[in-house]
């Protein structure tokens, strides 16, 4: 898998954050959903985002991915101001995401799904005169990605015939096909059985160390094992930022969030 | 020309009259679209049938007022049959297929009126009570055209209160906002949609009757008015009374003034306006907020 080369793109050194969301504020109507949230991720960092439902996690995600333009604040990606850029521009700058609800090409096969992502990643999507089948490099990388993520058995299965857990894996595989610098995962284990959750956890843990991760997760245990640092959101505000240990030991978090479990 | 107050008054009244016709046509189309994401291309055909039914009523009963009552009812009845026979069965189909079925109906309607009423144009006389003119701000203006404006305003007010004050109105407003939610609450959206659809047909028929004494009645009269109506819906933003009102007003005025000030541009002004609106607001001027 070529994801390890992502780092070599040379965006920023270790002291410039690879993702920097500064004082993000956003309202829906009169509802303040994101209240001056600041988030900095160092290259290779694995950052968790937790908070109760309605804490504004997915909104923040959508702002970082570019689906929503915030009322105020800025987003920098590898030092580039992307606040006003559309999602596709951000993706081309090295930001990939998975979706909370599977967002796949359900009536195509796994191979076709990965090849579509591969065509974009290899920047051949505009080629209209040469058969897609002859772009061997695209299909080869799709296949090797499938092998790396344990999807090779189902390469030629139509997505809607796959189990939910496998679809969830493909959701992440599609994002990885872009060979991103930073990967946003929106509740990767949502709706999964314990076995599927364990498999997903292993898959995320096995991602290249150089890949920066921002993960929303409800399953606290998943996050405590995976993350280097965690941001706790509550009513759109940052309640706490720190290591998993600090979060676990925080009285505020215990009373506001963990206590509810 | 523009500085002549008489010109301004007359053209503005003409514009208002067209606006009111467009309003009668667009409101049904718009609300049905807002509720069901369904667009009825045969809406113009209903307008044409309304005019023809008025023609027959006038011939039989020798009274415009009977026609004004009977013809829209006839059109509403046709709409109800159309709903029961076709529309009800194709709500699961893609919008494209729904649109194309109504597209087929245009052909059917076109030849149907040719079969029944012949291909030659007809007119009906303006009712005696309204066949005169009045002085408006010093300008002489036909009474009948003022009647059209007054009728449009009356319908507008009635619809406004109907939407705000009645149970059906509440269901319609909620249905436009989020149909699934309303259905989940156990409210029969289907029935509300049927009623709204018939009301829309009735209004289209009404528009056909009132325009019959002013414009000639001929097979194909449905086309140009349909396109204008669609533009009203696009510009105003489908699903809202406000959108239909503002859209009708803007299009009615721009078309009227465009035709007299720059006739060589044909309706290009209207299309340019629509393009401009879409550039700034792709969902129309008054989009109904979609609940997610």
């Amino acid at each position, binding site marked *: 898998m070529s994801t390890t080369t992502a780092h070599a793109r040379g965006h920023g050194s270790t002291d410039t954050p690879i993702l920097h969301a500064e004082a993000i504020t956003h309202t829906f109507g009169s509802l303040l959903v994101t209240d001056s949230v600041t988030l900095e991720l160092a290259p290779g960092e694995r950052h968790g985002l937790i908070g109760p439902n309605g804490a504004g996690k997915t909104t923040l995600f959508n702002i970082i991915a570019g689906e929503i333009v915030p009322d105020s604040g800025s987003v920098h990606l590898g030092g580039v101001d992307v606040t006003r850029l*559309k*999602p*596709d*521009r*951000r*993706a*081309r700058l090295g930001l*990939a*995401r998975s*979706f909370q609800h599977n*967002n*796949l*090409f359900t009536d*195509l096969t796994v191979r*076709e799904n990965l*090849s*579509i*992502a591969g065509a*974009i*990643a290899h920047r051949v*999507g*505009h*080629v*209209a*005169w*040469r*058969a*897609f*089948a002859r772009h061997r490099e*695209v299909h080869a990388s799709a296949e090797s990605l499938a092998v790396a993520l344990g999807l090779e058995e189902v390469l030629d299965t139509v997505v809607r015939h796959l189990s939910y857990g496998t679809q969830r894996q493909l959701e992440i595989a599609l994002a990885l*096909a*872009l060979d991103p610098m930073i990967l946003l995962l929106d509740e990767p284990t949502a709706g999964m059985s314990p076995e599927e959750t364990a498999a997903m956890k292993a898959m995320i843990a096995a991602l290249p160390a150089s890949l920066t991760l921002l993960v929303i997760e409800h399953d606290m245990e998943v996050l405590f094992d995976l993350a280097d640092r965690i941001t706790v959101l509550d009513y759109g505000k940052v309640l706490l930022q720190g290591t998993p240990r600090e979060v676990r030991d925080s009285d505020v978090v215990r009373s506001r969030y963990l206590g509810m479990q | 020309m523009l500085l002549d107050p008489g010109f301004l008054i007359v053209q503005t009244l003409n514009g208002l009259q067209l606006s009111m016709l467009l309003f009668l046509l667009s409101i049904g189309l718009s609300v049905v679209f807002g509720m069901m994401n369904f*667009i009825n291309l045969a809406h113009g055909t209903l307008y044409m049938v309304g005019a023809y039914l008025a023609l027959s009523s006038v011939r039989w009963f020798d009274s415009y007022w009977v026609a004004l009552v009977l013809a829209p009812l006839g059109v509403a009845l046709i709409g109800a049959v159309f709903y029961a026979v076709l529309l009800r069965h*194709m709500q699961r189909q893609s919008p*494209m297929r729904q*649109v*194309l*079925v109504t*597209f*087929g*109906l*245009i*052909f*059917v*309607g*076109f*030849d*149907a009126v040719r079969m029944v009423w012949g291909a030659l144009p007809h007119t009906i006389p303006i009712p005696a009570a309204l066949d005169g003119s009045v002085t408006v701000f010093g300008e002489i203006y036909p009474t009948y055209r003022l009647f059209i404006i007054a009728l449009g305003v009356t319908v507008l007010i009635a619809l406004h209160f109907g939407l705000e004050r009645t149970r059906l109105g509440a269901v319609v407003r909620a249905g436009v906002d989020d149909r699934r939610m309303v259905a989940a609450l156990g409210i029969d959206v289907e029935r509300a949609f049927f009623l709204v659809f018939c009301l829309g047909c009735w209004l289209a028929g009404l528009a056909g009757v009132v325009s019959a004494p002013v414009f000639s009645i001929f097979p194909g009269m449905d086309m140009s008015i349909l*396109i204008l109506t*669609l*533009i009203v819906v*696009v510009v105003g933003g489908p699903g809202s009374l406000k959108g239909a009102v503002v859209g009708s007003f803007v299009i009615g005025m721009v078309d009227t003034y465009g035709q007299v000030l720059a006739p060589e541009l*044909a*309706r*290009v002004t209207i*299309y340019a306006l*629509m*393009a401009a609106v*879409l550039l700034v607001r792709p*969902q129309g001027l008054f989009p109904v907020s979609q609940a997610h």
Partner: protein
Amino acid sequence: MIGRDPLHLPVAAALVIAAGVAWYGGDFFRHEVLAEIAIYAILAMSLDLLVGYAGLVSLGHAAFFAAGAYATAACTVFFGWPVSAATVAAVGCAAALAAVAGVFVIRVSGVFFIMITLALGQMVYAYFFKASEFGKDDGMAGIPRPDLSMIGLDATDPQVFSALTLIAAFGVWALLRTVVGSPFGAMLVAIHRNESRVRALGCPVPRYKLAAFVLAGAIGGFAGSLIAQHSGFVSPDLGFWTVSGEVLIMVIIGGMGSLVGAALGAVVMVLLRHELSHRAFWEAIGLPADLASYWQFVMGLIFIAIVLLAGDGLYGRLLTTWRRLRRS
């Protein structure tokens, strides 16, 4: 690559052979009809790129048909250009119109897209209807056919011209087949299936939609140029929205997302239109010949039936049947 379509080559070959046989033994009338079929097949295939692949249901495709026809008329009649140059200009004009209009129309989707393209088509129609330089509602006459005397042929002979249009239709099929089989074609299909995901993967979706719109418009303009050469005159009716609707129905009858299907739909529709408006047809099936003057009524009912019953269209039916046979 995307989507498995094992029958398109055999069906295309069957169509080519059928066209060849029909052409070889044909009389004057049949050659006229063949040319018409070929031209509408080109128009329908170009629309299928939008509807069947990119998922952009346009009800204004006749705008490009008319633009190409009028551009050909203007270049040949006004400027005296050779037909070949006029054809190129027609394609260019239609592409330019598609590029300008496309910037606006691709901003919206779904039923809105249908309405906005409908308005676009009517705008072009209204323009030609009122434009005195193009003969207003009378249109323009005296458009020549290509000069083939260099190779000893006379394009005014319907047999020659119909062969020309059939070859053009085949060429357009081959071109569009290349496009839909390319990565670009795969992106269009992907956008159709799941636009938000494609965007999140980094694809500049509007640019792709615009490119498809322009390509379809250009080919629509090519068809328009051929229809002008075929009939020798142009009128605003070429841009009327019923033309757009009929072409859309061709695509649906034939089966969306399969270019040969669109061509098949053109065959069915053109033949149907010819037969239904013929008194002899109605007499032959024992019905009053007067029905011929109300052929639109019958056509409308057939439209409705087709849209309600066609499902995946003729080609889709064929695919399903073939798969079932293979499985058993």
